[in-house]
């Protein structure tokens, strides 16, 4: 009798099994060298991990799926970029003033994507467990993709508009760009657990929605197909990064009770650091989108107060509370964007983008969205500046601003309970005096003064003679900023002349 022996057909593995195969059993206890030498950064921050295998990636993204879907995203994005260029998409935006927000994005945000790539590659090397290492390595690749696609997309605008020609160089030198640069350098010079709390949790999970969701929706509303597409292409990765952010926090909190106060301290610090960084996004939303989707205050309510409120309620079971000074952020939401825009209006002669007094209908929108603050505190100065400009005396601030030692933003913020008084805070350390914009920044300094006494404050660096010379034109040349072209008011700028010529031709094209 012959028996036909047939191999049983292998059952297809479920997602959970496939993911387990990807992330388990890849690591081993080393024997030639002690583990502490192979992973030298795993312990020094004080975080205790007892079981790295307890890590779960909620999306369980496997490598084959990762390559497949990332490739699909790239194909879609580059088809749009080609189409945008072929169809002269630059002419279909609402108004060339809008491009100034993209200039800030390219010089302030895209270099951070690259820094994030480096940061996650580093953490992906230094974590002991295979699960979080795989997640960090995927994110490192994503972040590099974000930097590249943003540069590719925005390069189309560089063919026509000013201030986009040397973003990487500017990021390292221009005064207001020291705010995002120092933010990321602070995170990248911390250990792997603080880095993930800073970037994955506080920044990606709690705060980046405010940049990528309502602002990108605003880009769509203003006809900027290119930016919307890279924005959402990046944001689809971002959702995965957000889950990593929440997962790492829960993982640390579940592994050891002793981790709770350390994590809370980092959440407090990085909420405040990230929130101060978003000051510029507040201004981009309220002042730089010719057609507006929602105000900064509304976005803050939707994405921090509501979504963040739910998040911190969920984390309460671990003993984690809402970040310290979230109440201050709540008090500042009616003034943040106005104080920031006025600052750049003061100093746009030293910036790689243009500013302007909002048009009448835009002032009306601001009055409507900010009924408690705008007409009383901010409208009068805009009306005065408008009159001065019409008289040929456009206001520029001739002196350099005092900066906060921690966030490096000019000391533009007002007292939490009095929007008419500048908020001054100070601390002494080893006989030196340091100044801060807020209790949040002052606390961060006092916790690690040795770190922030090294702050490269652009105004002080100019005074020390490290920025190309003593006059504004010297410094602008050192920034690679074309004086009279990239800077100053939008009125009379080459950008405006180009745009007005396009719009005039558009009228003629009918014949």
């Amino acid at each position, binding site marked *: 009798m012959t028996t036909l022996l047939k191999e049983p057909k292998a059952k297809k593995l*479920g*997602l*959970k099994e496939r993911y387990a195969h990807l992330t388990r059993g890849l690591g081993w206890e080393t024997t030639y060298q002690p583990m502490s030498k192979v992973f030298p950064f795993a312990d020094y921050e004080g975080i205790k991990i007892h079981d790295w295998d307890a890590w779960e990636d*909620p*999306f*369980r*993204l*496997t490598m084959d*799926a990762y390559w497949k*879907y990332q490739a*699909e*995203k790239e194909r*879609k994005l580059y088809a749009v970029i080609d189409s945008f260029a072929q169809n002269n998409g630059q002419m279909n935006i609402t108004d060339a003033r809008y491009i100034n927000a993209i200039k800030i994005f390219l010089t302030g945000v895209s270099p951070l994507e690259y820094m994030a790539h480096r940061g996650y590659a580093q953490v992906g090397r230094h974590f002991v467990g295979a699960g979080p290492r795989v997640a960090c390595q995927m994110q490192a690749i994503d972040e590099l993709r974000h930097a590249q696609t943003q540069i590719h997309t925005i390069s189309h605008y560089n063919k026509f508009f000013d201030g986009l020609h040397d973003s990487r160089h500017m990021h390292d030198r221009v005064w207001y760009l020291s705010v995002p640069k120092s933010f990321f350098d602070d995170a990248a010079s911390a250990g792997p657990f603080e880095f993930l709390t800073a970037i994955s949790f506080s920044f990606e999970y709690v705060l980046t*929605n405010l940049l*990528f*969701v*309502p602002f*990108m*929706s*605003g880009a*769509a*509303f203003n006809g900027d197909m290119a930016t*919307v597409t890279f924005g*959402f292409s990046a*944001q*689809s*990765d*971002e*959702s*995965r990064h*957000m*889950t990593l952010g*929440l997962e790492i926090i*829960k993982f640390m909190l579940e592994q050891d009770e002793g981790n709770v106060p350390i994590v809370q301290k980092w959440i407090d610090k990085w909420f405040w650091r990230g929130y101060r960084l978003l000051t510029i996004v507040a201004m981009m939303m309220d002042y730089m989108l010719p057609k507006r*989707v*929602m105000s900064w205050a509304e976005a803050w309510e939707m994405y921090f107060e*509501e*979504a963040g*409120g*739910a*998040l911190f*309620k*969920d984390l*309460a*079971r671990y003993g984690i509370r809402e970040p310290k000074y979230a109440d201050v952020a709540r008090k500042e939401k009616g003034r943040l964007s106005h104080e920031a825009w006025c600052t750049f209006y003061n100093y746009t002669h030293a910036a790689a983008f243009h500013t302007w007094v909002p048009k009448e209908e835009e002032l009306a929108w601001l009055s409507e969205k900010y009924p408690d603050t705008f007409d009383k505190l901010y409208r009068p100065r805009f009306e005065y500046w408008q009159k001065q400009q019409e008289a040929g005396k456009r206001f520029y601030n001739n002196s350099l601003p005092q900066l906060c030692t921690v966030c490096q933003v000019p000391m533009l913020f007002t007292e939490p309970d009095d929007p008419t008084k500048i908020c001054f805070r100070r601390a002494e350390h080893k006989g030196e005096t340091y100044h801060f914009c807020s209790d949040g920044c002052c606390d961060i300094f006092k916790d690690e003064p040795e770190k922030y006494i090294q702050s490269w404050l652009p105004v002080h660096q100019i005074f020390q003679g490290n920025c190309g010379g003593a006059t504004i034109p010297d410094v602008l040349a050192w920034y690679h900023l074309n004086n009279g072209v990239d800077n100053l008011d939008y009125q009379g700028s080459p950008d405006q002349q180009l745009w007005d010529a396009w719009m005039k031709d558009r009228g003629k094209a009918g014949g």
Partner: protein
Amino acid sequence: MAQNVSITLQNTDEGRAIAAAILSDNPAATVASMPSLTKIDCPGRLEIRRDSVETQLGRDYDLQELQLSLISLAGNVDEDDERIVIAWKN
């Protein structure tokens, strides 16, 4: 009261189909539309079911394809072959 979980999708063909599937499976969900995106909020818990998305799309669907349509989310995520659950534990 349960806190809202949330998912934000692109206003693309697939994004619209996923949104329709979510709304049919989660009666408590509410929708906010903004230029180029749709934000769905739901108290406590929200589920994306593979079979419902397939019904809407009229083709086979692998839930990992969600990566192509997703903009943002809020809540703890748990994914397997049949469904993605976004939930708060409290």
